């Protein structure tokens, strides 16, 4: 389980361009920090810090936290700012990539990651702003929900977070890229098979020529 999550995080790290500004959501996205080089990427946390690093237990400052309210460290060249300034950065298109989790992703590229009808989750935080403002969205998630149901569905049944399309989806089974009208399956993760992906995905997607040519179908 932990291994699957680490695998997803590691694959997400490979998507990042050097020198980009990256915001990491809670959950699997947070793990991405373990696979990137501090000097090459700058991490942003929407509560007001550009230049997030990990912190050792002994160096924890309770007044330096990330958006998950967890203790973090301060990189060389870091800066702090107000909430309004932080979201101005996000909405203004100054964050290159946001790596986020998702409850559902649908055939139209839309993400649901803030609310489950009937469950007492009354909170949205920065999710809608990040989906709106980040130049590129990478979704990292288990391919299916805890109850085994597909997360990649034809149409989100949970409330969507934005009408904006998420460009890249990385799960424990596969990698999908948005191709203008639909997702394309571009890569199988680990030793997963096309059959596994098909059995666990109700969203519409195409399969890349490369995968087809490799005879994986």
């Amino acid at each position, binding site marked *: 389980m932990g291994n699957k999550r680490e695998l997803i995080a590691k694959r997400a790290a490979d998507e990042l361009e050097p020198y980009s500004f990256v915001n990491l959501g809670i959950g699997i996205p947070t793990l991405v920090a373990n696979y990137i080089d501090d000097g090459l990427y700058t991490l942003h946390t929407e509560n007001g810090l550009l230049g997030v690093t990990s912190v050792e237990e002994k160096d924890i400052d309770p007044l330096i936290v990330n958006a998950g*309210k967890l203790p973090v460290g301060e990189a060389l060249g870091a800066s*702090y700012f*107000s*909430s309004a300034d932080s979201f101005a950065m996000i909405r203004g298109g100054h964050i290159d990539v946001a790596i986020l989790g998702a409850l559902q992703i649908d055939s139209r590229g839309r993400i649901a990651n803030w609310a489950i009808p009937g469950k007492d989750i009354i909170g949205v935080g920065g999710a809608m702003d990040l989906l709106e403002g980040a130049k590129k969205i990478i979704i990292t998630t288990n391919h299916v929900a805890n109850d085994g149901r597909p997360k990649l569905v034809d149409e989100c049944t949970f409330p969507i977070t*934005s009408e904006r399309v998420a460009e890249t989806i990385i799960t424990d089974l596969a990698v999908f890229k948005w191709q203008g009208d639909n997702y394309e399956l571009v890569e199988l993760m680990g030793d997963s098979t096309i059959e596994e992906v098909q059995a666990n995905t109700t969203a519409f997607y195409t399969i890349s020529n490369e995968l087809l040519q490799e005879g994986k179908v």
Partner: protein
Amino acid sequence: MYLDKLFSIEDALKEIKSNHTLMVGGFGLVGSPLSIIEHLTRHDISGLTVISNNVGEAGEGLGILLRQGKIKKAIGSYFTSNRDVAKYYNEGKLEIELLPQGTLSEAIRSGGAGLGGFYTKTAVGTDLARGKETKEINGETYLLQEGLKADVAIIKAWKADRLGNLVYYKTARNFNPNMATAANYVIAEVDEIVDVGELDPDEIATPHLFVDAIVKSELILMKDGVKSIGK
């Protein structure tokens, strides 16, 4: 020769009255005016509308005021971590206005800046756009968010001079400087008070014209929780 804004917490709290709209700084407990909130729990005040990212935690910070029945309405972005919020909401004891975090902080800034509101793309097409006006600007759809204002703001800063100039500490800054601009009366809880002239004019984050009262922290957030530092 200047107006000394240093007050006892009890004296400053006289400005908060029942049915007031109150802005409360902080992201969770980080940068939250913990001492002022603690004093508020001892006062007979009700019907508050609270504008704050969270409503503290269950039974902690603003969470105590909620359990005391003092909060009528909460405007914020993330109430999930305090399970009481959903409970009170489901029982019809609490009104909720949920805003995306960036829309919340921008609405506070907007209120403080004398603007009627602003157009954001955030939340367009989602459930949180319900009841909001939309508008096409340069071919894109935006929704209108009006500015937010409060009767009183209680905020947390790191250092103040006696005029009321403020500087903040790391991620304890968060909503505090924005809220300092958007209330009729602003009470700043600070850890340290310095002489006028000690803060570099280029580094003051909140100029003193925004601040009405400074009070000294009695509780601070340490690595192992909230601790009393005495008076």
